[in-house]
């Protein structure tokens, strides 16, 4: 494969960013929108060509003896730290990368199209498209990274695009603070990532993924068994790197930025905070998967963090009022699902004897793919609702199924997919994940099945509260209606994908080592999860389909728990306390005070003392000749005296 297409895939969005960012002011909205959509459409086409060439051309560079290869299309030096540690910018084509190219460009294109309708009439329309292009560029750069440092570079760039897009409505103080929070929290996580890279590459002397993952035992050997505080250095490095992933993928306890990030425009939430950027953490773990597998402790850490987060987010999602926040917590929960799935996988041998070892990896990636589609669908659906009702709050909705049929049906498909009902895509990927978990340890399996049940429950709670329950009387003045075609087309397309994506032979395409993997349904696991999901849906139907007082009763039965969950278990308050009270109040302010009143005062003190002394001795320079003579004379006498003493 030539380098032209891959370079274009990266260059085109960046060029669009510059074009729309610098020239956008001079363009009309329509031109800017069409340019953005066309640019993204072209990028999508190119990405499809690259991905399909990779998967299906049969080129020995891509697939050798049935095993998919990692192929570096190009890798140019960007910055040489030392002779060995050289940062390169390149394009690594392998199964997960090709899959991500498809996911990112598809969703990005859908969001571009959708935004044309959704953002119509907003100020800064051109700027919005510029930022979308910037984000797409950064995200593509992240997934095609050939080395961990390139990933870090684009990791930061997606962070900043996310910041810019969350804060798009920058006149709203809430949007500003949300964007700030998102950036700082992920930045803090990136600090861990950076330290992890530093530690890891100190030993490996290379940034390159292929070098590290093709021979992970070497990496372990290179660290030479060094330990720090009881854990091996490699464990520390991998955990630190994972910290970066925790930040971007909103794992506990660094999840707090994601719900607030919903202040951004809804299509942005669909693109960045549901489908693509937030799975960067999962992608990172998948990228470094063989190295993670070398140190069990780090894998366990990934699993435990994922499991706790998944449950936490699912519980919180059951109590949120803002529909976008429900979806945000649902996203957190689903990403945690993928993390657990990766965490329980390992690099066993190839073949049926080791059937389950790599399953978690494959399933996690599969879920990443399907989740991206149906979560984007749900978010875009939520966008259509907000567009119609002008509120994020489900209490302002209810009974919308009659007014907005397209939105209703596509949203329902999304809910069914996420709940894991066959034949929608979510069922297949979730089933594979659960199978992998059960195989690793039944506790994980059971725990995550419970989370899956909660997922079905809160999604249908949301669905019923929006589309059933009771109609909002305001509809009389302002009749909600379906969105324009620019918004409906993406909804329908994504719904269609969600219906059929489950039948993609994913195991043939994406596995950790490239060897094909045959998917077959595990009947017991599948049945359990379907039953749990159906039960949860049934419960939701009972509680929320028609207006009744069950939810209130339920709420009153467990007031403490409900409030705690509603307030997201007070994580925000804890963070506020740490940042405002401790960092600002107990560190920054005292330091600033210290600087002014101790260090600066010392310097001023020197000046003051000098001044005092000069004032004190100024009297001697009075201009009084007689005094001078006296001083002079006594000085001469003193000299004489000293001479005399010396002569004695």
């Amino acid at each position: 494969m030539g380098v032209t297409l891959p370079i274009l895939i990266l260059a085109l969005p960046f060029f669009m960013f510059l074009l729309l960012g610098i020239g956008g002011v001079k363009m009309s909205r329509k031109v800017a929108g069409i340019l953005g959509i066309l640019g993204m459409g072209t990028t999508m086409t190119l990405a499809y060509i690259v991905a399909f060439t990779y998967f299906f051309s049969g080129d020995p560079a891509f697939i050798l003896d049935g095993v998919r290869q990692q192929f570096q299309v190009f890798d140019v030096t960007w910055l040489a730290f030392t002779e060995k540690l050289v940062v390169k910018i390149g394009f690594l084509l392998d199964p997960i990368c090709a899959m991500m190219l498809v996911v990112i460009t598809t969703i990005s294109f859908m969001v571009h199209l959708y935004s044309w309708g959704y953002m119509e009439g907003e100020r800064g329309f051109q700027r919005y498209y510029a930022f979308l292009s910037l984000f797409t560029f950064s995200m593509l750069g992240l997934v095609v990274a050939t080395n961990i440092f390139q990933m870090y570079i684009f990791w930061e760039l997606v962070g900043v695009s996310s910041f810019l897009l969350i804060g798009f409505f920058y006149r709203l103080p809430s949007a500003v603070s949300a964007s700030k929070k998102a950036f700082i929290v992920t930045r803090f996580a990136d600090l861990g990532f950076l330290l992890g890279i530093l530690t890891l590459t100190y030993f490996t002397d290379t940034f390159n993924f292929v070098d590290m993952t093709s021979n992970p035992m070497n990496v372990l050997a290179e660290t030479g068994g060094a330990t720090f505080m009881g854990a091996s250095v490699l464990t520390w490095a991998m955990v630190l790197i994972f910290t970066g992933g925790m930040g971007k993928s909103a794992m506990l306890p660094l999840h707090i930025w994601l719900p607030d990030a919903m202040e951004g425009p809804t299509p942005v939430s669909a693109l960045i905070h549901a489908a693509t950027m937030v799975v960067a953490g999962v992608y990172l773990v998948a990228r470094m998967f063989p190295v993670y597998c070398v140190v069990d402790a780090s894998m366990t850490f990934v699993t435990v963090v994922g499991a706790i987060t998944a449950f936490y987010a699912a519980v919180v999602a059951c109590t949120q009022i803002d529909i976008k926040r429900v979806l945000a917590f649902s996203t957190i929960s689903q990403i945690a699902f993928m993390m657990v799935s990766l965490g329980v996988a390992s690099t066993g041998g190839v073949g049926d004897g080791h059937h389950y070892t790599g399953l978690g990896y494959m399933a996690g990636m599969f879920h990443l793919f399907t989740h991206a589609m149906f979560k984007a669908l749900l978010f875009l659906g939520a966008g259509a609702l907000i567009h119609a009702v002008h509120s994020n709050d489900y209490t302002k909705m209810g009974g919308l199924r009659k007014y907005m049929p397209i939105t209703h049906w596509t949203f329902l498909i999304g809910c069914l997919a996420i709940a894991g009902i066959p034949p929608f895509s979510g069922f297949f990927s979730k089933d594979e994940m659960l199978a992998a978990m059960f195989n690793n340890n039944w506790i994980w399996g059971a725990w995550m099945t419970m989370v899956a049940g909660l997922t079905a429950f809160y999604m249908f709670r949301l669905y019923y509260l929006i589309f059933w329950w009771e109609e909002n009387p305001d509809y009389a003045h302002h009749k909600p209606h379906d969105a324009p075609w620019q918004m409906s087309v993406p909804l329908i397309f994504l719904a269609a994908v969600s219906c059929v994506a489950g039948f993609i032979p994913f195991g043939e395409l994406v596995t950790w080592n490239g060897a094909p993997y045959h998917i077959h349904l595990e009947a017991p696991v599948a049945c359990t999860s379907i039953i749990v999901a159906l039960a949860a849906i049934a419960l939701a139907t009972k509680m929320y389909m028609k207006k009744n007082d069950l939810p209130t009763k339920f709420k009153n039965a467990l007031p403490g728990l409900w409030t705690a969950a509603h307030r997201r278990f007070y994580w925000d308050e804890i963070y506020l306390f740490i940042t405002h009270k401790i960092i600002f109040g107990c560190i920054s302010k005292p330091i600033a005070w210290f600087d002014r009143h101790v260090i600066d005062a010392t310097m001023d003190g020197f000046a003051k003392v000098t001044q005092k002394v000069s004032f004190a001795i100024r009297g001697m320079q009075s201009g009084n000749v007689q005094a001078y003579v006296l001083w002079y004379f006594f000085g001469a006498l003193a000299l004489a005296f000293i001479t005399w003493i010396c002569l004695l």
Partner: protein
Amino acid sequence: MDLNILWYLVPSVVMFAAGVYGFVTRKNMIAMLVSLELILNSADLNFVIFNRFLFPDSMEGMVFSLFAIAIAAAETAVAIAIIINIYRAIGSTDIVETNKMKH
């Protein structure tokens, strides 16, 4: 008993000490100038005395005294001119008053 070097030096020392006292304590600038003349004269005298008693063959001490007298005369003339000028300006020859020049 004959006059030797010490005899002549003692009055010179007294003149000098008196000159120092006068210069430090007097407030009138002309009086200070008078004290200054005393000091100068004591120095001149010393030149001559040492010349006479220690190096009778040469006359450098005397020559220097001559120069000193000439320069003292010049200095006094200028000083008095200045004093008179100050007196014109501030109406006093008091050394303390001359601080007014600063303002």
